């Protein structure tokens, strides 16, 4: 192969790779721009400061944060266990953990509804707190898929850490927990941040299970995705698009912030 040919091939390869990326960026860009051009600034700002949207933003912020926190607190040990330990029925465990992702979102909500008809569900609602058609139910509805997302994302982060590092730490005198906290966790940091980000993003965009399990009730279960739906149902297209745009902006900021913090190691 001549040198020229080799260079041409490399150029072609780069061209293809970069143009795919540009295509994807362009696609997302066009969709966003189309949405933005439908609105004018006064409409957007008056929508954003309306009582309904403020409620939806607050509720979304609170519920997604709690959901993500719970999912990550559970997901870190669970992901570590999946990544490190050989378990009986490993494949079965993996499959079950992944199931909520393949379930159609509405079904996740129905499954929760059915669960709360069982004796255990009834007991929980009577003795701990009600969940069906309530605000706190949102967290549960988000958790169905977010739990899986967290475990998957966080396991991937631990997979990226060479087990030898831990073994070396152990030979240098660390106990198993010490090796985990002092070696694995810092090394997996970027991956863990990425996993957390994905979990949060998923929670913020969740709609189907909330519609089914909590109902689309104004000023009660009206997270931002439900606010979009409710506003569409009365033909308030501008309002719905404003909320969507706000969700995009919040998402962009949050994703960006998480990445920066993760990259610089400010998060932990």
């Amino acid at each position, binding site marked *: 192969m001549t040198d020229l040919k080799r260079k041409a091939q490399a150029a072609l390869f780069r061209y293809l790779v970069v143009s795919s990326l540009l295509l994807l960026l362009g696609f997302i860009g066009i969709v966003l721009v189309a949405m933005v051009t439908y609105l004018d600034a006064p409409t957007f700002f008056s929508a954003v400061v309306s009582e309904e949207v403020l409620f939806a933003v607050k509720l979304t912020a609170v519920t997604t*944060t709690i959901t993500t926190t719970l999912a990550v607190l559970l997901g870190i040990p669970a992901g570590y266990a999946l990544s490190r330990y050989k378990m009986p029925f490993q494949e079965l465990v993996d499959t079950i953990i992944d199931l909520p992702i393949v379930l159609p979102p509405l079904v996740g909500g129905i499954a929760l509804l059915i669960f709360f*008809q069982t004796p255990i569900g009834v007991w929980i609602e009577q003795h701990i707190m009600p969940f*069906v*058609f309530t605000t706190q139910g949102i967290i549960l509805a988000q958790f169905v898929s977010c739990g899986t997302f967290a475990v998957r994302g966080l396991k991937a982060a631990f997979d990226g850490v060479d087990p030898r590092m831990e073994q070396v730490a152990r030979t240098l005198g660390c106990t198993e927990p010490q090796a985990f*906290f002092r070696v694995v966790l810092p090394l997996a940091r970027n991956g863990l941040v990425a996993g957390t980000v994905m979990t949060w993003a998923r929670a913020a965009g969740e709609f189907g299970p909330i519609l*089914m399990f909590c*109902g689309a009730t104004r000023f009660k279960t009206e997270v931002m995705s439900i606010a979009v739906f409710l506003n569409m*149902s*009365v*033909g308030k297209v501008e309002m719905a698009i404003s909320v969507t745009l706000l969700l995009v902006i919040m998402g962009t900021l949050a994703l960006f912030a998480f990445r920066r913090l993760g990259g610089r190691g400010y998060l932990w």
Partner: protein
Amino acid sequence: MRALPFALFVVLIAAVIALSGCPKPSPDAANTPPVGPNNAPTPKADISGELLIYVPCGVAGPYGAIKDLFEQRYPNVTVKQDVANIDVHTEKIADGKGAPDVFISLGDREVQRIAKADRIDGEPVTFAYNSIAMMVANNNPCGIESLEDLKKPEVKTIAVPSNQNSSGFYAEQAFKKAGVWDAIQDKLWRTDEPSQVKVQLSSGKADVGIVYYPCTRETREVGGKPQEMKGKVQLLGKIPTDLSGPIPAQAAVIKGCKNPEAGKAFLDMMMEDEVQDIWEKWAFDRAKQPASGERVTLYLYCGAGIRPFMDKAIEAFCAKNKGVRIDVGYAGSGCLLGQLTFAKRGDLYMPGEEFYMDQARKRGFIDGETELVGYFEPILLVQKGNPKNIQKLEDVVKPGIRLGVGEPDAAAIGLVAESILTKAGLLEQAQKNIVMRAGNVPELGYLVKLKSLDVSIVWRMTAKEIEADTDIVPIPETLSPPIAIPIGVLKFSEHKDVATRFVDWIAGPEGQKLAEESWMLPAND
């Protein structure tokens, strides 16, 4: 390095605490405590005998329902009634010719007259507030819009009960306050028999008449259902109570009657929530709001297409019924059916079509009868200014028209669109123009607004919300019978009384008025 896990923990906890300053999900939001103290007194077992009640013919309907309640509670009492025009009763009692155990009046003037004759035992009870209304011949030939219009020369005769009668007395107050009293003196036709007002109107001898507002629903049958006015007259509107003043509808036990004890028990019962509900159902205003301890949250499954109407209806209902809160879950009617099937809770179901209600009934979810709230009327929705010049249904099959319809399996509007096109013989031709099959009506509305469709088949109510950005082309009614919208109480409901009160209200005059304002066809047309 040792501090790392601890720091992580602190950050997460801090985040939760920081955010918990925002509105916290309240644990008892959905599960409010059951209805407050039951205000029904324990029945006195020793009441028996016969109870005779004088009932004005205008309230035979509500009286029947109250009588049923009374007989249930006091099975040893035989209730009898004398139903007649109120002026007849008043005179009989005042003259000492009749002594019923209870006298029910539609206002306070009659009771005052009897009190003057010293025939009342104890204190009269104001059990509800009444109001008056204007009635005209069908189609309002004189074009009357307000009390002011009564001065118009076209209005020659105004039939008003005499001021012996509460309706006449309070009508005078309203005329005086509206400043028309002096100007209409020559036009007045007064009568001691209020029932003559309708007769004068329908025979064309009067142009306007004053009646009690609840008369517009009256039935002459004890235990009958609320009626709609038929015949040659129509209701023009309620005279605002800030003009006439609220009219206390009173009842009293009559001196010298045979069974004052049963009479007093009957008056006591008039103030109970259940009886107050009955008066409200028959277009009276409550004398007593539901007990303040009552805090009820109802859950309503409501078709998403009905939301424009339902939001307003709930606001109006809850403003009147303090302590009642209604949470609505909006989604497609079919989706809601699935939801309530699994959740097995909630109080009310209101789908956009009878079909879904039938499903719910077949599965045994509906308690008792359902009521009609109104009708959806299908129309063609086009872009503002009708750029594609769609004037009639046939135009939707013109080449190049982008037509949107509902998915028949998912939404009522889909079934309807299909039947309209089939009846018009256009279904085949329309197929090539159908670019969108939506799962719900609002979607079809905003796609026209966003100019993604040239025309779609939607409800008139859908169009109301996007009135500024779209135009309407009607579909002939021969092709599209209006679609009934039912509401029913769910068998899971723990607050069936309150849920039923909401159903009655929404199917009643006030709900119907809102339905009309939301561009639905009211149920009673």
